[in-house]
């Protein structure tokens, strides 16, 4: 093997090693930082891990929102019409948070089964349904359109909060 080839080989080996290390680190960082999504039914069924950040989503149950009188702590219940998960959040709810609205919560599950939320996401307009929530409802045989129609006709057991 002549000198030029030897040097090229070293360069190629070095690059391969570098790429391998980088990809390993990336995948490791990725594993540490992905948040899995669980439906309320899965959470009540104890499928979700406690003490680790997860995402959960569903419809905010009518009449469940309760604000503490002298702090920003708020509790409410998220439902997929099969199971209910209590959520506790200390902070400011997004503009589009309303009872009857589909939301996504990022937080950790404590031992008592309450989801301690670090973020509450309610995006877009009042007809928007987060994708995960739509999927959860889909499993119940409800499409977001059905849900919206049922809500409009007042047939739903959890009707939407009064619109302003």
């Amino acid at each position: 093997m002549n000198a030029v080839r030897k040097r090229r080989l070293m360069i190629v080996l070095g690059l391969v090693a570098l790429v391998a290390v980088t990809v390993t680190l990336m995948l490791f960082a990725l594993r540490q930082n992905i948040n899995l999504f669980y439906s309320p039914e899965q959470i009540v069924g104890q499928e979700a891990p406690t003490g680790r950040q997860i995402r959960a989503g569903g419809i905010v149950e009518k009449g469940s929102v309760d604000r503490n009188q002298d702090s920003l702590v708020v509790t409410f219940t998220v439902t997929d019409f099969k199971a209910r998960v209590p959520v506790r959040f200390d902070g400011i709810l997004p503009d589009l948070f309303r009872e009857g609205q589909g939301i996504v919560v990022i937080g950790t599950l404590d031992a008592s089964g309450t989801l301690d939320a670090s973020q509450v996401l309610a995006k877009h307009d009042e007809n928007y349904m987060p994708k995960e929530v739509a999927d959860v409802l889909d499993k119940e045989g409800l499409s977001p359109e059905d849900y919206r129609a049922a809500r409009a006709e007042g047939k739903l057991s959890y009707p939407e909060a009064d619109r302003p």
Partner: protein
Amino acid sequence: MLIDVLPEYGVYALILALALSLLQAVVPLIGAWQRRPLWMAFAQPMAWGQCLFLSLAFVALALGFLFNDFSVDYVANNSNSALPWYYRLCAVWGSHEGSMLLWSLLLSLWGLLVSIFSRSLPRDMLARVLGILGIISSGFLLFILLTSNPFTRTLPAAPSEGADLNPLLQDPGLIVHPPMLYMGYVGFSVAFAFAMAALLGGRLDAAWTRWARPWTTVAWAFLSLGIALGSWWAYYELGWGGWWFWDPVENASLMPWLVGTALMHSLAATEKRGTFKSWTVLLAICTFSLSLLGTFLVRSGVLTSVHSFASDPSRGIFILALLGLTVGGALLVFALRAPQVKSPVSFGWLSRDAFLLFNNIILLVMAITVLLGTLYPLILSSLGLGSISVGPPYFNALFVPLATVLCLFMGLGPLSRWKRMPKGELIKRCALGALVALVVGIGAPLMVGERPWHVSVALGLVLALWVAMTSLRDVAASLGRHGLKGPARFSRSHYGMVLGHLGLAVSIVGITLVSNYHVERNVRLNVGQAVEVGGYRFKMTNLADVPGPNYQATRATLQVTRDGALIDLMHPEKRFYTARRQALTETALDAGLTRDLYVALGEELDNGDWALRVQVKPFVRWIWLGGVLMALGGGLAVWDKRYRRPIRRLGEKPS
């Protein structure tokens, strides 16, 4: 009346533009292949005509918005007669169809500029470049006409009132952010076209890089400005006080920026030294592909965010097909042609070439990191493997070490010479900069702040100072040796480099300080109550209902004092937009070079209290100031005399 049929004229203009762009795609390329001067000469007039007709279509749509023509679906969905006229005008690119029209218009504008400013290129090269641009343009115009026609009408029963523009977009930021960002995105198509033209022509020498360099730099400057504006807009408009969320849409604009930065530097090496020829072409292809991928991600509806408007799957598939054809075709040409290219020039491990190569690789790894974090959830969910999201910790964990290495080499690059740099001289040149960076970077947070010293603050400041000191070193040394005449000897493109690197240093200072030292409190307040945040006292003195043109607002007044002295009166608002029945937080800012005060109204609570988000954000403006400096640096580099001189001389030659 002309105004009644304006949308039809718009569609007609779009069809004519498509016809011209198809001609522009086919005829000059065949002409260049068969060496027929007449066929090649088609390129320029077609580019001009295409730009003219797209401008007409754009004006037609804009007039539809100005005159509230709600029979046009797109106008009805995104405008309202109560909307102020300037937002009605910006609503043209406020949603999917119109922003694709803007994309195409800007693409044709770049084509027009190339046909004017690069007219002295060899004829076959110009024909190929404009031909490639014509192919891209045809693809996008087909996309608009087949799936997203902005002129579709609802007749005869047109709605009497529009659904209004998304309130989040009713903001001065919207006026400038998308056109800037698109100028950047689309501008990389010019670099791509030059690279492809060089490959097709089999002339992959250093010449094409000299022609492509200014175009790439301009596109990069626009993209930098667009990203900075987007970050600024998110900061004050979303009401959370964050300036970067690692949202897929932000990532979509960051990826082409990272690879575009690598391309800009690699072009410099290829032009000056003839090194990295194939690598540069590959980067040009990657940059434009990532611009297209960004468009796909944002427009296809696979992501949910403020930006994703299209939820029609046929659109997503069309863009994906366009992306696949472009990338596949380009890589195929590359694979067929590139192996013939040799870069016979060698260089040592300590040289500007080597440092540029290292940083190219690091920038690419950063882009791959972002790509992985953005696409991983999409791939998993499309394979039915569950729904996940990748959080900001992933990106931060990888970006901080990568950026650290990047900054180290970024300092060494400008100090070293091409080809080979003796170790002793390199150390001598960077010793002062390194010493100052270490001492000030570690010492400053100890001396000034009331806050505890933190290793990440020291790291950020050391890196920023290192980059700043090393980029200024040559000018400073020359000032010492030759007096005031010294700095005049450097070219404008050298100062462009200095300004660009300084811009990044300024951004790093901002990012470091605001991430580590910001103070944030969520409180409940009523009139007469006060809260202390970060040494400032915020007292709510008034709450009032204020009517707006198309909304109702509640406005709070906060008196801000520090040590008893009045700083500012702040007026955060909560707006309720009547047409969309949507609430919106209007933040109040007291902006300053060393700190921002940030107040946002949350929601009204049971007893009349309001939830408030109160934040003190030190040095947050520096992040965007750095972006502006980088863009100015790009502009200065293009202003360099050497880009104008040879072209003028070539132009005088009889051809």
